[in-house]
């Protein structure tokens, strides 16, 4: 009988000790890693990859910096609470240079190179316009935080949604009653000469007419302009209110030169805070704005009746009561816009959880789930306020704030209702095929 030598199955003392040491080490390590154990229940612990299209350079850079901080803070908060469907969220950020062509390339990179589940984050309307068609072609959900009216206007596609920030049309429309009741009926508008400015021009003129007011002059300024005095003579003398909305690096010059031009005999001034996002209200020249009014998406200065949600959100992102970075009081946030990143990420979370999202094959389910969202309550996830999402137009609607400049700070003067911001649907994306 041949002797078969069996391979030894006996465990030696040495290997047993080794295995034991590695095993306990791993368990101990897992215990110390925050959130590690919680993901272990999920079918897949692969992270959900969110492509973050961010304006790190170009004219949108200040917004980009704060969009990034808010996004990182929201991601941390979501991951600390167990992630989405038990999976961690991973942000893959790419700079689009605030450039539409680069924007489309970035979306393409997210879809084909980084294997992202979706793309998110863009602010500037021309970048959204440049990128959204590509997102539609690549069939990757594209959640923008842009406040342009392009989503709800029907010009984009079923893959593009804006659930975290209201659009210009509703913002502007909600301002008209306040302006005509409190400031004056004859308005001169000064706005940048591209889509965003044209939205202001068209929707505010129409809304003001409904209130019995009139826009008596419309002054379009090229977005690259660096000197503004030459435009001010075009403001008619009988102007009661100057309505200004400027963006880009030259906004301080704009206000300063307006101050030099008018001095103390100024008309009432109503502006969109876009003109001064990321700009310290104590900057030289801005004292001219004392007593003027601003639209704010979310009050920059912590108000007396600040909600606990706002307080917690401020702390999570690292913003102090004056709207500046806690680490550098000169680094002022883009408080009226960046909450959109926080809220959009939570809406993505809700959508993915409702859709039972597992991977890119469920992208259409995610879009359908978000489309079916309607009421969004004021909460830690939505610190700016309650909102109503319109699944047909892919656009969210919410409260708008009007603040007055008092002692160099912005003090909340009026909060609009959500109803003030609603308008008739211009599109039904849900009828479009995927």
């Amino acid at each position, binding site marked *: 009988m041949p002797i078969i030598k069996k391979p030894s199955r006996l465990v030696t003392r040495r290997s047993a000790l080794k295995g034991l040491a590695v095993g306990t080490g791993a368990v101990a390590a897992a215990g110390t890693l925050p959130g590690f154990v919680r993901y272990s229940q999920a079918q897949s612990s692969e992270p959900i990859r969110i492509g973050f299209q961010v304006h*790190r*350079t*170009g*004219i949108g*850079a*200040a917004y*980009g*910096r704060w969009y990034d901080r808010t996004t990182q803070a929201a991601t941390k908060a979501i991951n600390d609470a167990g992630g989405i469907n038990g999976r961690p969220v991973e942000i893959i950020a790419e700079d689009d240079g605030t450039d539409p062509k680069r924007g489309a390339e970035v979306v393409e990179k997210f879809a084909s190179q980084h294997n992202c589940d979706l793309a998110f984050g863009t602010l500037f309307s021309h970048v959204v316009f440049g990128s959204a068609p590509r997102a539609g072609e690549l069939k990757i959900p594209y959640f923008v935080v842009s406040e342009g009216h392009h989503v709800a206007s029907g010009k984009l596609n079923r893959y593009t949604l804006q659930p975290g920030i209201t659009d210009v049309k509703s913002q502007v429309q909600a301002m008209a009653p306040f302006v005509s009741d409190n400031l004056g009926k004859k308005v001169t508008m000064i706005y940048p000469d591209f889509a965003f400015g044209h939205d202001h021009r068209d929707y505010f003129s129409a809304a003001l007419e409904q209130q019995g007011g009139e826009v008596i002059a419309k002054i379009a300024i*090229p977005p*690259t*302009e*660096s*000197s503004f*005095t*030459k435009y*001010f*003579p075009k403001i008619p*003398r009988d102007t009661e209110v100057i309505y200004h909305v400027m963006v*880009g*690096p*030259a*906004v*301080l*010059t704009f206000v300063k*030169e307006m101050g*030099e*031009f*008018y*001095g103390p005999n100024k008309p009432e001034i109503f502006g969109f805070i876009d003109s001064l996002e*990321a700009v310290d209200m104590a*900057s*030289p*020249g801005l004292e001219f704005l004392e007593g003027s009014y601003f639209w704010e998406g979310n009050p920059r200065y912590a108000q007396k009746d600040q909600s606990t949600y706002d307080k917690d959100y401020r702390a999570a992102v690292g913003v102090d009561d004056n709207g500046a970075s806690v680490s550098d009081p000169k680094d002022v946030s883009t408080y009226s816009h960046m909450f959109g990143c926080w809220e959009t990420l939570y809406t993505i979370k809700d959508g993915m959880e409702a859709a039972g999202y597992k991977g890119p094959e469920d992208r259409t389910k995610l879009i359908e789930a978000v489309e079916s969202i309607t009421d969004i309550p004021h909460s830690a996830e939505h610190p700016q306020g309650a909102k109503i999402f319109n699944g047909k137009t892919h656009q969210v609607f919410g409260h708008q704030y009007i603040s007055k400049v008092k002692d160099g700070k912005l003090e909340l003067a009026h909060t609009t209702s959500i109803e003030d911001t609603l308008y008739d649907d211009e599109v039904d994306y849900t009828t479009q095929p995927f």
Partner: protein
Amino acid sequence: MDLGPYLLLASLEGAVAAAVLALTAVGLSLVFGVMRVVNVAHGEFFMLGAVLAWWFASLVAGHPAFGFVLALICAPLIAAVIAAAADYFVLKRLNYDPEATIVATIGLLYIIQQTVLMTYGPDARPVEAPFNARIYLPWFGYSTYKFFVIGAAIVLLIGVWIMLTKTRIGLVLRASQLDSEMALAFGIKVDQVYAMVFGLGAGLAAMAAVLVVPIQQAHYLMGGDPLLLSFIVVIIGGLGSIAGTVVAAILIGMSDGIISVFFSPTLAKIIATLLVAFVLIFRPTGLFGKRSI
């Protein structure tokens, strides 16, 4: 607004634009005249001046005038030193070959721009004007600082002119411009002259930027417009002609101011560009340029 005050405002705006433009363009023209180098990075030296001005102004506490004066002295100096170094380490190695120097200065443009982006960041930052009194005219107010810009630019341009025509340095510069080989034969250290001219050109651009930065803000992309306008001015005035450059700067600056106020800024740019095209067709050497030998 009535036509009179309207025209006054337009002329004032035009004069400020012309003053800044003349300083910037003279720098570009000087470099081309003496070295035959088309400095595409000229606008970036302008930007560097503005960014350095912000930095110096933020170093000094107290009255904004102290920081401004410090910036007015130091920012152009630093820009000049960087430019002279670029001349020594890059342009000289290319033997000032016209095509190669264009490519090299394009490279320089990106290096400066991106370095500023990485260090100073993408924000536009204000510099407080040394004084900011407002003149009350019956029709509109105007900043006194803008008059200072016009005055300072005139003084600086007269200084450059005196230096070129009355001093030994100017003589050496003109000699190198007329015939660099002959100048070399007469013992003029042409390399040093070239480094100095390149530095001077950059310094003038930086100086213009320091003057303008309390009106505008320092931003890493601000070099594009001055470069384009300087080229327009230098082409209209005649490449290498200082007098032509100043005249063209006044022409372009004033017409830009007046056309922008009465019609639109876009039209002003269109007309300036059209003027360049006509000058190139009918008088390729520019209004004041001499035919090269």
